[in-house]
């Protein structure tokens, strides 16, 4: 590890902690329906939207109505995207004529299962991509079919989490807010203004924004190279802020057109965490005890920084088998290079790559600036574990905090009894129904990851079958041994966690993987969101119990330690055996000079 590498991580952390409070404060204003400084610009627009759509913003919803609205809205969005993807051949803004008879030879066809997988992927804020954007998607598909969801799915997550926070903040009522109002306000006041400024910034750094056909260039070796173009900046902004992660190009944020400079890299990393971090402050603000929010942030931050340094450490140690070949792998160079440089951008170096990999998997984003497949086994374990823990270390927009809150509820329930009272969290008693919902949330995640990985690792299918061309499900991996297993595990973890980053090395574009990973994404999104909303509905009815010196304190260092302990133990207990057969055994084998 180099000093400059560690400094980059520390500077990033400081910036993050500094902006948490202002962002959270502003988010609270927006979601509580207060006047913000943008009111005079957007207030009219907001009222106009309500008038045109016939929504009464004053109307409060029961959690079932809220959930019903959310689900219907998401379903319609998914169908909309599916239709656009299937019809992109006959729709405009398709300069490269994808999905038509005159499509370029390198184009991938938009099959029904790929369209289904993609529609689900973007609706669920996953952005798992079984295709390369530049040789599959028309500009219209990118901008309308996909980017639409980048905004909407993030706003949906934000709304759902706000509803859960209201469950804690309100007392003795039955309603958790108005879904349409939450949706409109978050889009108008949070996502639109920030992405507007953000896109301009990205353009200033060199991110492209055009509708031009692909450029054909002649390289110095005299080879013809096709350089894809497109409206990248706008999509890039919401891809990062909305923690979607679906790159315009296959290389994602490692591509110079998506992420050209160290500065753009820093801002991209920050933009993945600002909303989830702001959410913790918003939680504290809404339950009228900001210490509660800071405690959650502390737990998230500690897990994040631990992960980052573990990942960075193992990347710096590199691969012993390369060192044996007398290749210089020491990291004592200013540029933070050396160690394991496979699959990395030299522009970013080890620290920024490890940091980005940790952030993107903590935040359920899935954008990448290095290949996770090429990380050393234990460094690669970190992104995988981050996802498996339920995407709660900062996590997705909203989904991160509601996941963390569910773990807080579990922590309080398991350990809270030790102070001799039935458990309570921020003044709400945790009872049967709450525990049930919290357990359903945890169960849904591990069910989907484990069962689908089990299927993927043993399911026999006929060779060249229409459902999976390579035959058996385990034939889709491009590497043998434990690394191949990790590829399957990562695929379903990433889908279920709605992360969307790929470990790569897995041929995902077959009907089998398209459909199973789409189901995993749906389970990971809605079967975790519905219990969270049901929890909101249960909590909101409860009376507030004022804290006393006999109450389990949920704002101090002790609680933070305990919360981290429960997250790690529950996560570790669930996935440790699987990880043993993946990255852990691979690590031991690497030191026995066996590589995969």
């Amino acid at each position: 590890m180099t000093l400059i590498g560690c400094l980059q991580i520390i500077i990033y952390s400081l910036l993050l902690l500094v902006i948490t409070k202002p962002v959270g404060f502003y988010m609270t204003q927006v979601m509580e329906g207060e006047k913000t400084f943008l009111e005079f610009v957007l207030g009219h627009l907001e009222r106009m939207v309500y008038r045109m759509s016939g929504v009464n913003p004053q109307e409060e919803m029961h959690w079932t109505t809220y959930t019903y609205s959310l689900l219907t809205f998401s379903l319609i969005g998914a169908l909309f995207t599916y239709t656009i993807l299937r019809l992109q051949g006959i729709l405009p803004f398709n300069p490269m004529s994808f999905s038509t008879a005159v499509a370029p030879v390198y184009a991938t066809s938009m099959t029904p299962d790929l369209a289904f997988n993609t529609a689900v992927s973007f609706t669920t804020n996953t952005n798992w991509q079984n295709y390369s954007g530049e040789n599959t998607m028309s500009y219209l598909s990118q901008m309308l079919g996909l980017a639409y969801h980048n905004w909407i799915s993030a706003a949906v997550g934000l709304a759902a989490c706000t509803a859960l926070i209201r469950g804690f903040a309100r007392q003795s009522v039955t309603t958790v807010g108005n879904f349409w109002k939450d949706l409109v306000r978050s889009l108008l006041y949070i996502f639109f203004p920030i992405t507007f400024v953000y896109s301009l910034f990205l353009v200033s750094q060199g991110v492209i924004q055009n509708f031009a056909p692909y450029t054909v260039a002649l390289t110095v070796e005299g080879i013809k190279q096709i350089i894809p173009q497109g409206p990248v900046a706008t999509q890039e902004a919401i891809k990062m802020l909305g923690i979607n992660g679906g790159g315009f190009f296959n290389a994602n944020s490692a591509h110079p057109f998506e992420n050209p400079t160290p500065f753009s890299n820093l801002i991209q990393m920050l933009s993945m965490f600002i909303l989830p971090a702001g959410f913790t402050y918003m939680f504290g603000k809404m339950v009228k005890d900001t210490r509660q929010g800071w405690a959650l942030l502390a737990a998230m931050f500690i897990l994040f920084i631990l992960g980052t340094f573990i990942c960075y450490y193992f990347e710096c140690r590199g691969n012993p088998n390369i060192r044996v070949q007398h290749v210089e792998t020491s990291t004592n160079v200013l540029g933070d290079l050396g160690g394991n440089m496979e699959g990395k951008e030299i522009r970013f170096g080890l620290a920024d790559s490890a940091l980005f990999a940790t952030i993107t998997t903590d935040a359920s984003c899935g954008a990448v600036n290095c290949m996770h497949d090429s990380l050393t086994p234990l460094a690669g374990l970190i992104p995988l574990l981050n996802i498996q823990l339920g995407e709660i270390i900062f996590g997705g927009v909203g989904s991160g905090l509601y996941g963390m809150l569910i773990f807080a509820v579990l922590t309080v329930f398991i350990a809270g009894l030790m102070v001799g009272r039935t458990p309570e969290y921020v003044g709400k008693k945790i009872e049967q129904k709450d525990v049930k919902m919290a357990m359903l949330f945890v169960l849904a995640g591990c069910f989907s990851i484990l069962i689908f990985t089990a299927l993927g690792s043993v399911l026999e299918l006929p060779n060249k079958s229409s459902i999976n061309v390579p035959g058996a499900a385990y034939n889709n991996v491009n590497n043998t041994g434990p690394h191949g297993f990790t590829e399957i595990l990562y695929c379903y973890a990433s889908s279920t966690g709605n992360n969307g980053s790929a470990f790569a090395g897995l041929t995902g574009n077959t009907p089998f993987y398209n459909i199973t990973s789409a189901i995993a994404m749906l389970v990971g999104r809605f079967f975790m969101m519905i219990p969270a909303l049901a929890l909101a509905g249960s909590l909101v009815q409860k009376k507030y119990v004022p804290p006393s010196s006999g109450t389990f304190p949920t704002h101090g260092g002790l609680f933070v330690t305990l919360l981290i302990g429960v997250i790690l133990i529950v996560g570790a207990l669930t996935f440790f055996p699987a990880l043993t057969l993946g990255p852990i055994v691979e690590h031991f084998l690497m030191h026995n000079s066996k590589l995969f």
Partner: protein
Amino acid sequence: MTQDSLTLVPVPERKKTPLLQKAILYRAFIDSFVKLNPLVMAKNPVMMVVEVASIITTILFFRDLIIRTPAKVLLFEGQITLWLWFTVLFANFAEAIAEGRGKAQADTLRKSRKETIAQREISKDKYESIFANTLRKGDTVLVKAGELIPGDGEVIEGVATVDESAITGESAPVIRESGGDRSAVTGGTTVLSDWLRIRITVQAGETFIDRMISLVEGAQRQKTPNEIALNILLAGLTIIFLLVVSTLLPFSIFAVRAGGCGQSTDMFSLIALLVCLIPTTIGALLSAIGIAGMDRVLQHNVIAMSGKAIEAAGDVDTLLLDKTGTITLGNRQAVQFIPAPGISETILADAAQLSSLADETPEGRSIVTLAKQFNLRERQLAKVNPQFISFSAHTKMSGVNLNKKQIRKGAADVICTFVREQGKEVPAQIDKEVSRIAKSGGTPLLVADNVRGLLGLIYLKDVVKGGLKERFAHLRQMGIRTIMITGDNSLTAAAIATEAGLDDFLAEATPEKKMQLIRKEQEGGRLVAMTGDGTNDAPALAAADVGLAMNTGTQAAKEAGNMIDLDSNPTKLIEVVQIGKQLLMTRGSLTTFSIANDVAKYFAILPAMFGSLYLFSATNTPNHGPIWALNIMGLHSAQSAILAAVIFNALIIIALIPLALRGIHYQPMNAESLLRRNLLIYGAGGLIIPFPGIRLLDQIIVMLGLAPFS
């Protein structure tokens, strides 16, 4: 009053019955097998899974026995099967032993009820012998020394020593007498000396013993809300581990194919891992903890009508305590004579004593006692032919007439009127003294006679019980507010509340006001506990989250409360709260312990299960592939490691039974310190202990040659 009775021992352990008695053990042993019935087992999802697992391994074992698997394999399989059954049996044993203590009591109780013959009074001095179970409410019975009291009732005549050990376990006899606090008797107890005339107040079949039998036997034991919630958590964890373990088979199949060596995991190892991972420790002990909690309350001579009430006691935020009997000794005592100007203290004492000679109230007796300090003892009363005037609601004063001399004592306003009627002046200084005493929480009693006018005042003081201040401070630390309920005016109440260290008080309390206070507290989200004995307490007792009724109280009060204190000691509410807290803490601590245990078990079983995978290097010995590096405990072999983990998992249940029954050590302190302490012991302890434990068992197994494959 002796000084001894003023001090209060904090959290008195009333009865020290040994945890394990031979009879209970024997019975629990039998019950552990009876409880294997799947219908009974189904109530406990965690142990149900273990039982199903045991059945599966048994079937597999016999299959392998028939197909003549090598003996070494059979030995391993047999041991796993056996220890899995032990795990289930140990869990059953824990529950059975917790129930056993109650059941043993219930048996004695039931026996006594059957055979009791009652002497029912037909008319004065005429009795008939009938079976106790035919007694009706309102019957009067006579019980002589050596006989069993046939039913719950109230002593209407007589004083006797009664052995209540059948119910309370306390071998020291208690005194029961007519009138006052000690008039209630319970059926099934024995009169040791003298006799009692008792009016039966409860119908046969609904008596205390009947209720107690069904309570202690746990026949109607319903899971408490928190227990149900915890069960959901445990069931959820069990499902998660089922998923984890069942997917390990396909995962290992993949690894065998990809590595080209080793074997996929066998059923016995998988099942062993499953049983080790699911929270068997807490699953096995959960119901024992609940039953033991009720038992512990019972040992304090409090009968809880449901486990829910005990749980609620742990959650209580506000304690409503009656002043009289709980905070103060119940009787005001004379502590000082304050003479009027021109009167000597001795004269005042003399008059006060004379006026109180016939006054049998505690206040009156305390005046006589105080006056003894002035050497006023022997009196030739007969000479002066005293006429005692007792207190009446009409005159509001009492006193004595000696020939023509009239001495009176009473409240300030009445005596002042009396003095003025005699044409005497009331010195202005007296008013000051009266209000000074009232402000300090005392009661001023004026003494006057018709000759000299006002003689002075007697300072009657409410005596606060010793040790209470510290206990209230403890309660405050635990976040519990204490509110004193009293009929006194606010001035007096404030003074006593300050002296006893209470947080708040409700002065001039009426049942309605009490009710309002409870409602107000509950609306603020707080749980309220209170004690009561009168019929007019009944609504409040019913409304409170924890209502502790006194056994001496009226039937209405007893029915309204969810707990009854046999000793009728209102201070016990504090103990009940502590037991409730201890119960919840035990549950939480063992849950944490149970889950933390899993970490070590992984490090025992995973290397054992996956040891043969990815064996590429020739330097590795068989079964000791790369994953064997996770064997950080240095266990001997795959078989010994799995066996050690399974045995540890079973034995830890047995080891923790005493803790589950006794409850974890409890000391009043604030939540933060409690949490830190318990987390250190049960969280960190649960994480660490299994490592040396499993290692030790592994060595024993190897030493005994029980893992022959090694």
